[in-house]
């Protein structure tokens, strides 16, 4: 009889278990990609097919808003203003018996610039039958370009030269499909040029880089045929592969001196393309000039010197920089104190507003010890190049240079990777303040206001804020290991620091970013458990 009872219990238990369960999403990991927007931290909860926007009130309380995304998000990007997150979804093709409806590819925009996050979705079904998996955003925030990156395998047959241009100022996005004329290449990189003064007027060019050519597409008129520039003769056995593209508008009053500069992989040449007036439909045509700089350059930049516009190329193998006159292709070699591999323009903003002013460049990423960084005064580069360089003694190799916005634009934050130190560089005083870290491999986050730099070591619960102006450091100890840090505007008009703890579940600690104090921190847990659909 006991067996009968057990059997009955088993049967009823099975019946009970078969009476329904919870959605699968509850059992999926709480892993999310986090993005910092102006006033929100947006968590892309891939496993729940949604985004969660965390906004803060003046007292540090977090509010979460959940928005469903399209199926199969294949690309995400944040605009350069840090206001919007874009998610490109491939959609879904329903098969017979499929419980999920057919869904067209779509571009979802999460706007985190206001106190409450909002979303809108641009339907791409009208121009995309097969989904594209690449997403590039114009720095001005007006256009988004979709392309086949090939990362996600793509469709059964894909035309890699097909792009979709989305005008983000149009209510429906007005997506336009463009198929580039190809000589056999496929796009590898998309570069948005700044606004250029061309014969046809102010123009925004999209430069599409393939392994053997460049295509110039006018985003203002995507219906116009693009101009394709072949990077080698048709008879050439090999084609140089572009490694870096830089653009300069030249004199804003002129419409014939905009230029594109290129360096190539394992090639000692640099190329400039001057966009000159022509009678064609586009009103301009690129005229190439190629110059050998004596070694394989590691970085290039258009710079304004006392001799005029030059294309500067760093040639680390020769401890030198080469200034190329794009008009004549004449070169000037400047010996450098170290083999710097990277260059950033740090010209003060008031000087940049006048065309006659020369640039100041920061050289960094030197390979040798004591390389530090060097200021390159390009106002003396043509006449007295040997006196144009001033080094700042930094004993570690600088691996990245972080820009500082708004209140402290004359500063840069220099990261040294795993060296246990970072520097706040004062461009005006030419000083570099070292800030030592107990941990190596720290992450540095410059506040959007430019007031401070946040330092944390992923996996540790310590956090520090350094005032960029005064260099005052305040160390904070949180309750859990920090995996990400974002500073956002809060509903009270102040600033809130959101430190994420992705440690199985997902939690967060908020602090007053302006005057952080552990006593006034707030902790939040199970952020992705909350609101699970």
């Amino acid at each position, binding site marked *: 009889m006991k067996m009968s009872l057990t059997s009955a219990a088993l049967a009823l238990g099975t019946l009970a278990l078969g009476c*329904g369960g919870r959605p699968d999403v509850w059992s999926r990991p709480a892993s999310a990609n986090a993005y910092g927007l102006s006033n929100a931290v947006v968590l892309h909860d891939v496993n729940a097919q949604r985004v969660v926007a965390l906004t803060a009130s003046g007292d540090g309380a977090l509010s979460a808003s959940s928005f469903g995304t399209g199926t199969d998000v294949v690309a995400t990007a944040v605009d350069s203003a840090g206001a919007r997150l874009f998610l490109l979804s491939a959609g879904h093709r329903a098969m017979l018996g499929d419980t999920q409806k057919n869904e067209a590819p779509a571009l979802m925009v999460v706007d985190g610039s206001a106190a409450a996050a909002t979303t809108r979705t641009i339907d791409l079904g009208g121009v995309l039958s097969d989904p594209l998996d690449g997403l590039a955003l114009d720095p001005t925030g007006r256009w988004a370009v979709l392309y086949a990156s090939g990362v996600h395998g793509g469709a059964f047959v894909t035309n890699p030269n097909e792009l979709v241009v989305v005008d983000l100022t149009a209510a429906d996005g007005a997506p336009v499909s463009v198929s580039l004329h190809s000589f056999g290449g496929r796009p590898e990189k998309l570069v948005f040029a700044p606004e250029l003064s061309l014969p046809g007027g102010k123009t925004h060019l999209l430069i599409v880089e393939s392994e053997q050519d460049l295509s110039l597409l006018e985003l203002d008129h995507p219906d116009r045929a693009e101009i394709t520039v072949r990077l080698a003769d048709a008879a050439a056995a090999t084609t140089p592969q572009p490694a870096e593209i830089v653009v300069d508008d030249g004199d804003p009053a002129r419409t014939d001196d905009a230029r594109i500069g290129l360096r190539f992989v394992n090639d000692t040449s640099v190329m400039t393309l001057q966009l000159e007036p022509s009678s064609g439909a586009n009103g301009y045509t690129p005229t190439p000039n190629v110059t050998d700089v004596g070694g394989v350059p590691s970085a290039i930049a258009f710079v304004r010197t006392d001799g005029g516009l030059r294309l500067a190329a760093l040639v680390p193998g020769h401890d030198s920089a080469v200034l190329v006159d794009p008009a004549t292709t004449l070169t000037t070699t400047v010996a450098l104190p170290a083999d710097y591999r990277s260059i950033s323009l740090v010209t003060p903003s008031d000087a940049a507003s006048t065309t006659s002013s020369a640039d100041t460049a920061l050289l960094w990423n030197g390979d040798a010890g004591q390389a530090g960084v060097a200021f390159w005064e390009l106002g003396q580069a043509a006449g007295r190049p040997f006196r144009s360089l001033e080094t700042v003694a930094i004993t570690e190799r600088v691996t990245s240079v972080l820009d500082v916005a708004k209140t402290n634009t004359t500063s840069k934050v220099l990261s040294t990777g795993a060296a246990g130190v970072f520097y706040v560089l004062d461009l005006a005083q030419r000083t570099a303040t070292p800030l030592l870290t107990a941990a190596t491999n720290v992450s540095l986050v410059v506040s959007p206001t430019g007031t401070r730099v946040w330092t944390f070591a992923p996996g540790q619960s310590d956090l520090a804020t350094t005032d960029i102006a005064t260099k005052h450091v305040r160390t904070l100890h949180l309750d859990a290991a920090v995996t990400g840090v974002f500073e956002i505007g809060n509903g009270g008009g102040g600033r809130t620091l959101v430190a994420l703890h992705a440690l199985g579940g997902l939690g967060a600690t908020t602090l007053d970013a302006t005057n952080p104090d552990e006593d006034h921190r707030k902790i939040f847990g199970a952020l992705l458990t909350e609101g699970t659909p």
Partner: protein
Amino acid sequence: MTFIETTKRVALGLALLAAGPAAAADNLAPAIEQVGGEPAPGSGRFEVTVGVRTSLFKGAGFDPFSSSDAFSQTSARASWAVLQRARWATAVGALFEWGDASADARGAQAQLSLTRFGVLLEERLALGPHARVVGRLAPAWLTGRATLDDPSLPVALGRSFSTIAVDASAGVEARLNAPGSTVGVWAVGEGGYGWAPTQTMTFTPQLAVADRDKAGATTLPDFAPRGGFFRLGLALTY
């Protein structure tokens, strides 16, 4: 403990109980005179039942705590027939049920425990010496404790509630031993519906008073502790 393990333990325990004290109850006098006939031996006034109750919570509020809709509790009750006739008996008693469920909920361990303490109003109808049907109404006090243990937090999140509840059920009891024995051993099976008000599930960290302002709340879907249920158990009567 799984549902089947609990059932087996209950069955074993009751079988041992039934074997021992059978004779001790032989001389008990009925507290209230019988009306309209003699009830069968062993279907006496007093009944103790131990078993398993499985409730089906269909709402989204239960999803964090279990991968299925089933919530199992250990169930114990005792009842006393205050009015006993040839086939009918009216009984009152007490009910105590407890159990918990837990599951992973997006990286956090969610646990829910429910305890029910109630009174029983019971009507029994004997179908014969080996079987009877029973109807029960059980107003109860339901207390719940839910926790959310997120590894990203130094402390767990918790939520407690207490509320009224009421069950209505009907079932069948089948006698397992000989009808002539003073102590009856019965297999019990019943089903019904349990109702309790919906509870908001706002979790707060379990912190000292001084630290409570440092923590925010986490809100999960409202939990409605109501739905159909069934019980399986073993009963002793004498």
